[in-house]
Each structure stands twice: as structure tokens, then as C-alpha cells.
């Protein structure tokens, strides 16, 4: 369990760095979504199913849809 | 019944915000009158509460009848009631003014939303003052930040959007830092109630100093960003200068003060004087305050837009308040409280009189103010009184607060601070006096030098006169207020 925890933490940090480095905003949103989902998996491992459920629905679902909606109305690439 | 008043005050504001959409079809004056009625009700109940607290002492209000370690608790003491009364009174004055001039840049369709946001703003500010819970403070702080930002962006101008965006980003960084601090304190105490956390912090200081140190760092930085304390002030001039005039007055006179009050609450009630002195917070605050007072004034001199100038002046004035806090003595705290009052009055008067000039003459550039004192005597007269207060001329509230700060500095043995105070006063004079001189002494090519009362709505004139009168009245008779403020400072420890 501890090993899984460490792996997920490393994965999260890599995802966060990837979000920062990606120039394509749409990809960045997809990575952010993966990051959030992985975060909710971590919270499931840490025995907080309530928060994991909410984060999966709100963070990964709604936030990313809203981000994509706005990127579609504005620019896709970061300069 | 009296013990129910705090929650009733909160619910009145909330209910008012919720029923405004129902009046969409009716005439708008009905809504504003109803809002004024609600404000007066809360004002009266705040006075009743103040009387109750002074005669019978502070009391707690437990939501849901749960013990403080389980549920959320409101603490009603002199500090919270006095400042909620101050906020409500100042907002009543600005509100009356705004019924004449909410128009400045706000589309007519948006009036309803503007007042919804205004009442939720009041709800959040009162909630912050009443609550005795760190996490509850965070929730109210988020309501406050989202409403303040949206009463800036509601004007729908180009520069409002960018100013609002910068504000919301920094605000959110500040909130999350504060939340991180709450997490660190929760980690070692297991409570979120301020008094229980404070006990836990005192006993945990020897065991987990790293937690407390990091928490102090995060919380002070986070709230420092929101309160525009000097190195974090970059959002303030843009945000306050682009907002509609009545919003600028509320933001500058009230909202920033609420964040400073949270900071006082956290420093004195959560951590306590011993710990903050052990980690040298007072020294840091004093240095930051001194730099802020000087630099804010220097930036203000360089501005040509009058509202931006007032924004930078706010940065300098926040320095005065932080200096009072940084002395960590009863006198210093009392002086800081008094300056919160006097700066609130003076900044509201300045922003509203400038708003009247913008409303009537459509000019914002300092260089175009020539001879305007003859065309708008009331507004410019109030402006002059408030500006003299800012400089620290006797007979105004500004003089009393500077006197108090100086006395507190002498008491603390920090003579350097008095020099800073005097220099800052001179710098203030450097940018306020030219406006007054050009307004009353210089000729304007187009207009004759005939003084006549300006033709602006009475709802705008009366608040201006009231504010000017209050500045002088409190400047002449500060005794009552000072003793109340002393009680408020005592109720913190």
C-alpha cells in the first residue's frame, strides 16, 4: 500500500509538471483531468470515499468540461 | 432575543440578496428602498448589540446548540460588534450615494445584480467579524473575494476585466495559503475553533515549532496579499481605480479593512503575543509598514489619474494601520483601530467626491482640475477636508490617528517610526495639496469664477456632507470613540 502511495505521488508530481510544460492547452486540460482522477484514486486509498467521489465528479468532470468550453471559445495554443 | 440578533443580521442581508431577483419586473426604487430599510434594521440591531455587549459582556452563539469543539460558534464581543457597526454605517452612507450614481459605468440591466452582490458582500463581511472559527472564516473570505471581484468587473470595460483577473488570481493564492495555514494548525491541534486552536498552539509551541512557524508564514502572507500590505499591493491600484465610484469607496474603505481585521484576529487571538514576538513578526511588520508608507506615497505622486492616485494612497495608509499592529502594544492596537475608522471615513469621502466630479464633469485627470472648486464647491470642499485629514492637519480624524500612532511609537521606544510618520505626512501633502490649489485658486479658461452649488442629485450631496461632517466631528471629539476602541483592543486578548 505504501509503495502504491509513493508511486501515485510521483505520478501526480509528473502530471503537474506536464501540465505546466505543455504548450497545447487542450492537452494540458486532458492531463489535468488525469491528474484529478489519479488524485481521487489516492484519496480512495487514503480511506476518504466521500471526497474521492466528489472530486471525481466535480474536479475531473465539470471543471474539465468548463475548461474545454472556454478553450474552444478562445485560443488553443500557448505562446 | 438579543442573543439571536447576530444570526438575524446575517440572514437579513442574505434574504435581501435572495429576494432582489423577484423584484425584477417592479420599479427599481422599490428594491433600493427595501435595501435601505434592511440596512437600517441591521444598523439599529448592531447598536443594540453594542449596548448589550458593553453592559453585559461578550457572549457566544452556538449554531445548532453544539459545543464549540463540535460545531461552529459565533463570538460577539466589543471588537466584532464595533467594527460591524462601523461597516454598516459606512455602507449606509455609500449606499445612499450609490442610488444616485450606481450608473457610473454599470449598465441599467445590471443594477439588480449589483445590489445582490453588494448584500452578499455585507453578509460575508459581517460573518467574518462574528465567526469564531478558522475554517468558517475561510468560507466567508471566499464569498467576500468573489463578490468584491465581481463588483469590479460588473462595469464591463476593457481594463476592468484585466484588473479583476489579476485580483482574482492573487486573491485565490492568498486564500489557499490561508487554508494551508489552517491545515497546518489543524494538524497539531485537531480543532478549528479559534480559542481551542489558540490553546493547542500555546501547548504545542515547544513540541511542533515547525508547524506553527510555517502556519504563521502562510497565513500572514495569504492575508497580506488580500489586504494589499506593501510588497503585495500590485493589484490594488488597478482594481480600485477601475471600479464604479461607490464600489471603489466600499472596497477601499471597508473590504481591505476587513482583511486587516482578520489578520489582527489571527495574530493576537490565535498565536498570541508571545509567539509572534518570538518569531519577530512585529519587526517584519514595522519594516514593511515603513517602506509601504513611503513607497505608496511616492507612487501616488507619479499618477495623473485621480482614482489611481487614491488607490496608491490607500497602500500608504494601510502601512499606517500595519505599523500600529506591529507595535504589539495596547496603545499601538488602539491607534491602528482608530486609523481603520478614520481612513475608512476619509477614503470614502475622497472616492465619493471624486466620483461626483467624474459624474458631473467626466474628468479623471489631475491636471484638468483647474477651477473646479467653483463649479463643484460641495464636492471639492469635502475632498479638501478629507485630503487635509490624510495629510494630518489638526481638527480632523487624520491628525488624531497620527497623534495616537506617534504616542504609541514613543511608548514602544521606536523614535525612527515618528520620523517615518512625519516624512509620510509631507509626501501626502505633495500630492493632495496641488489638487486643492488647482481646484480653488487656479483659473479655468472656459468657466467663470462664480461659485454655485453643483447640480447633482441630492442623494449624492447629502452623504458627502455627512462624511465631511463626521471627519471633523470625530476629529474634534475623539474621546468616546477612543474609549470604545480601547475596550475592543482589550477584548482581543
Amino acid at each position, binding site marked *: 500500500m505504501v509503495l502504491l502511495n509513493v508511486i501515485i505521488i510521483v505520478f501526480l508530481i509528473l502530471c503537474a509538471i506536464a501540465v505546466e510544460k505543455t504548450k497545447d492547452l487542450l492537452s494540458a486540460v486532458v492531463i489535468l483531468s488525469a491528474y484529478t482522477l489519479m488524485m481521487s484514486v489516492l484519496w480512495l486509498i487514503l480511506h476518504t470515499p466521500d471526497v474521492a467521489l466528489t472530486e471525481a465528479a466535480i474536479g475531473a468532470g465539470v471543471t474539465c468540461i468548463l475548461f474545454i468550453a472556454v478553450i474552444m471559445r478562445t485560443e488553443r495554443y500557448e505562446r | 432575543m438579543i442573543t439571536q440578533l447576530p444570526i438575524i443580521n446575517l440572514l437579513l442581508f442574505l434574504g435581501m440578496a435572495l429576494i432582489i431577483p423577484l423584484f425584477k419586473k417592479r420599479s427599481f426604487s422599490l428594491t433600493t428602498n427595501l435595501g435601505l430599510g434592511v440596512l437600517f434594521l441591521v444598523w439599529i440591531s448592531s447598536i443594540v448589540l453594542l449596548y448589550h455587549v458593553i453592559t453585559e459582556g461578550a457572549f457566544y452563539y452556538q449554531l445548532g446548540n453544539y459545543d464549540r469543539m463540535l460545531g461552529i460558534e459565533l463570538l460577539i464581543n466589543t471588537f466584532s460588534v464595533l467594527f460591524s457597526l462601523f461597516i454598516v454605517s459606512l455602507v449606509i452612507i455609500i449606499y445612499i450615494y450609490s442610488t444616485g450614481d450606481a450608473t457610473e459605468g454599470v449598465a441599467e440591466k445590471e443594477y439588480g445584480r449589483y445590489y445582490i452582490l453588494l448584500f*452578499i458582500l455585507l453578509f460575508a463581511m459581517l460573518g467574518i467579524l462574528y465567526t469564531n472559527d478558522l475554517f*468558517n472564516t475561510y468560507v466567508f473570505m471566499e464569498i467576500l473575494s468573489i463578490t468584491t471581484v465581481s463588483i469590479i468587473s460588473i462595469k464591463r470595460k476593457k481594463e476592468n476585466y484585466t484588473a479583476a483577473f489579476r485580483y482574482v488570481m492573487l486573491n485565490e493564492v492568498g486564500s489557499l495559503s490561508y487554508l494551508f495555514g489552517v491545515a497546518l494548525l489543524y494538524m497539531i491541534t485537531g480543532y478549528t475553533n479559534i480559542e481551542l486552536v489558540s490553546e493547542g498552539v500555546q501547548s504545542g509551541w515547544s513540541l511542533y515549532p515547525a508547524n506553527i512557524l510555517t502556519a504563521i508564514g502562510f497565513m500572514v502572507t495569504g492575508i497580506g496579499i488580500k489586504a494589499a500590505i506593501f510588497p503585495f499591493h500590485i493589484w490594488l491600484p488597478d482594481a480600485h481605480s477601475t471600479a464604479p465610484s461607490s464600489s471603489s469607496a466600499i472596497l477601499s474603505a471597508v473590504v481591505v479593512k476587513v482583511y486587516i481585521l482578520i489578520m489582527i484576529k489571527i495574530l493576537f487571538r490565535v498565536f498570541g503575543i508571545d509567539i509572534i514576538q518570538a518569531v519577530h513578526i512585529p519587526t517584519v511588520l514595522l519594516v514593511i509598514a515603513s517602506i509601504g508608507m513611503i513607497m505608496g506615497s511616492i507612487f501616488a505622486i507619479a499618477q495623473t489619474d485621480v482614482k489611481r492616485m487614491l488607490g496608491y494612497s490607500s497602500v500608504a495608509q494601510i502601512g499606517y494601520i500595519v505599523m500600529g499592529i506591529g507595535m504589539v502594544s495596547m496603545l499601538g492596537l488602539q491607534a491602528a483601530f482608530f486609523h481603520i475608522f478614520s481612513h475608512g471615513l476619509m477614503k470614502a469621502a475622497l472616492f465619493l467626491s471624486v466620483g461626483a466630479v467624474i459624474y458631473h464633469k467626466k474628468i479623471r485627470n489631475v491636471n484638468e482640475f483647474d477651477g473646479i472648486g467653483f463649479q463643484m464647491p460641495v464636492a471639492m470642499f469635502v475632498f479638501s477636508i478629507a485630503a487635509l485629514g490624510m495629510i494630518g492637519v489638526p481638527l480632523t480624524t487624520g491628525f488624531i490617528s497620527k497623534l495616537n500612532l506617534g504616542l504609541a511609537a514613543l511608548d514602544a521606544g521606536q523614535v525612527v517610526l515618528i520620523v517615518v510618520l512625519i516624512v509620510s505626512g509631507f509626501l501626502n501633502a505633495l500630492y493632495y495639496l496641488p489638487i486643492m490649489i488647482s481646484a480653488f485658486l487656479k483659473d479655468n479658461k472656459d468657466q467663470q469664477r462664480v461659485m454655485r452649488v453643483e447640480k447633482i442629485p441630492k442623494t449624492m450631496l447629502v452623504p458627502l456632507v455627512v462624511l465631511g461632517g463626521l471627519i471633523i466631528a470625530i476629529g474634534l471629539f475623539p474621546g468616546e470613540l477612543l474609549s470604545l476602541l480601547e475596550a475592543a483592543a482589550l477584548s482581543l486578548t
Partner: protein
Amino acid sequence: MRKRLYLLLFVGLFLVLSYNIMQMPGKSTVDAPAYNDTTEHYLNESIEETGAINVVGAILADYRAFDTLGETIVLFTSIVAVASILKVADQKKKEDDHE
């Protein structure tokens, strides 16, 4: 150059904070300072006091219901705020269509 400086600053911040964290209460057990009498009370008494077996739900909607009220108000405010920026008044839209 400026980016490098920022990177250095943030790495330094991270190192300082990590050093601090190492001195904080470590592995989470029931002996951790945060697991105190409040927690015990929530876990033991919530069924009698609220009748809910999910303690998170009990705290959310009963013990700390005021927080949740504040949070619904945040949602309400965000709707009003977004509408105040994005909604277009009737007349303006018509004018835009004419152009």
C-alpha cells in the same frame, strides 16, 4: 534569466518547506494530535445526536451545517457573478445584430 531565478526561488521554497515538514507529526495513527476528543465524539455520538451513520454526512449537514450554507452561497454568488459578466442585455444584442 528571470524564469531561472523564479525556478531557483521556488525550488528553495520547496526545500525549506520540506525541511519543516520532516519535523511535523509523522505517520498517521490514532495517536496523532489531530485525532483527539472531538474526533472520538464525532465517531461515537453521531448516531445518537444526528441519526446518520455516515459521519461525514452528519458533520457536513448538521454539526458544521453553517459552513455548507456558506458554500451554497459561494455557488449562488458565482452564478450571479458569471451572469453579470457574460449575459448580454436585449438592446445591445439587437444593435450588434444590425451591424
